């Protein structure tokens, strides 16, 4: 049963995109989106950072923004807030893990630096998500990466440099590259 089902799934994976290609719209429902409209909301940022917009920021600039907009919850330098400790390690000394359960909020835990930009841009700060400018988001991310010991204080973060930041916990995840269907293990693994 299990075997035949896996086989079926494999066949579907091979065929599903092909089906999408071969078929033309059946119902012609929905309104076409222009490229311009798409650019207005295309802000889910992948690990390669293809969607990152123009803008730039450094840790020094980020320190100012962080103190004004983030410190109230996350504490001074993101270390001792009432909510979600964002910084482990210190400038020049990245935290190597292992990560305890309550340490997974730290930027040091993220496998890609783009995750910080993506989440801060769309969901932070809590009272007014989306209210930071793109420059401010780059700056806050630079500040957090610097305080976590991952980049230098003078490093400029922008659409080109941010995806290239090597995160110390990049290899902390299993499987390293998520696949579907998953490896043949019990479903609860």
């Amino acid at each position, binding site marked *: *049963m*299990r075997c035949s089902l896996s086989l079926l*799934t494999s066949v*579907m*994976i091979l065929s*599903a*995109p*092909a*089906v*999408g*290609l071969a*078929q*033309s*719209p*059946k*119902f012609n*429902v*929905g*309104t*076409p*989106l222009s490229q311009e409209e*798409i650019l207005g*909301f*295309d802000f*889910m*940022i*992948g*690990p*390669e950072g293809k969607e990152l917009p123009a803008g730039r920021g450094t840790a020094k600039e980020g320190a100012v923004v962080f103190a004004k907009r983030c410190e109230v*919850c996350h504490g001074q330098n993101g270390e001792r807030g009432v*909510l979600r400790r964002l910084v482990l390690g210190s400038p020049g000394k990245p935290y190597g*893990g*292992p*990560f305890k*359960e309550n340490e*997974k*909020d730290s930027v040091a*835990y*993220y*496998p*890609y630096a783009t*995750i910080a930009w993506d*989440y801060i841009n*769309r*969901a932070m700060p809590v009272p*007014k*998500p*989306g209210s930071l400018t793109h420059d401010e988001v780059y700056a806050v991310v630079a500040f957090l990466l610097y305080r976590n010991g991952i980049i230098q204080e003078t490093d400029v973060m922008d659409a080109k440099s941010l995806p290239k930041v090597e995160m110390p916990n990049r*290899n902390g*995840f*299993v*499987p390293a590259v*998520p696949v*579907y*269907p*998953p490896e043949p293990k*019990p*479903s*609860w*693994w």
Partner: protein
Amino acid sequence: MDSSGSGRRRFLKHAAALAGVGVGAGVGAEWAARGQSAKAEGAAKPEVQAKDGNDHRELLRRGARFSVDHITYYTPLQDYAGIITPAQLHFVQYHASHFPDIDAQQHRLTIHGMVDRPLSFSMDDLKRLPSVTRIHFLECHANSSPMIHGAGNPNMGPPVQYVHGMTSCSEWTGVPLSVLLNEVGVQKEGTWLVSEGADPGKFSHTLPMAKAMEDVLVAYGQNGEPLRVEQGYPIRLLVPGWEAPFSVKYLRHIKVVDQPYHAWNEAMNHSVARPDVGGKARWYHYQFGPKSVITRPSAGLKMPGRGYVQITGLAWSGGGVVKKVDVSTDGGKTWKEAKLQGPVVPRAHTRFTFDWAWNGEEAVLMSRCTDELGEVQPSRAENWGFSDEESKKPQRSIHTNAMQPWRVARDGSITDAMFS
């Protein structure tokens, strides 16, 4: 959209949500009824005083937790019958401070990325397309985690509502996502998609294209009514059998992409360290394995007396249909098959019953689910990759489907025997 509406309106909504919480957090039908009347009258304060001497205020506090970035309700599994969870009792594990105030007339679902024809769909568009209605469970990836069995966490522990109550089952109605993906024309590089909700936290999640094409719905109906606000009104993804975070609520954008996008929640919050892979974090769990729990009698309740008592509970599996549930009254030494109560449908809660005569002696009640794939519900050690010794410590784990033992004492009291 996130914070439109006047402060007062938002306050009233929040108050109504709180009154609804009274419903979600109540301990029985009586409570559900009270919560409803409080809601109907627009009362800002849920009634929590009870005449039976129990501290329902305490249960309310535990049942629905609010913080700057979380809202949580638990389904009162010990109190309901059958397999359908009333929408107002459906669990909530929400990653923002307040529910969004969305105008369905203005709401749009966009699908773009690696597609031939990027499109925007209004609610009218979605509702004119072919719909399907199916019964499916949803379960939080963190449901039943060892951390919430009470040890060291005063907010958690019995009754079963607060241990396993982040699973619920509904009849969902919506458009198959495959229909919409066919309209936009997925390009051959488009092997994954990533979705975004319109909630303040912009909850986002990756989904493999093969699953999206298989049985995923863009749902607008739940148990015959529109989605409730706390369930994603006006639309949500419904990804059958998989961890609930895949089922993005307040759905507004889908982007077809060529790789997992590692949104904040999935990359960070939903990964968990496993000792059997050198302490690295397991991420991208997909479907839930076979699972079951006895809901009555269960911890926090009291045995009604010696003699006949029906054991009943729920079983489910992301792998499809529940094939069999076995029940043990001696802590797993011996097992007997329980009766499955219809309907038994794939990836849905399935009600089981078992006739038992309690002789007044100590007993340990357990259930064990087998699904159509032949997978069997594991022990906690198998489940979490710990040695049996390690697994006795209530550590954090997610994606949990271990068997749950309840200990019945001679005085009729029932406790959680998972870690004792």
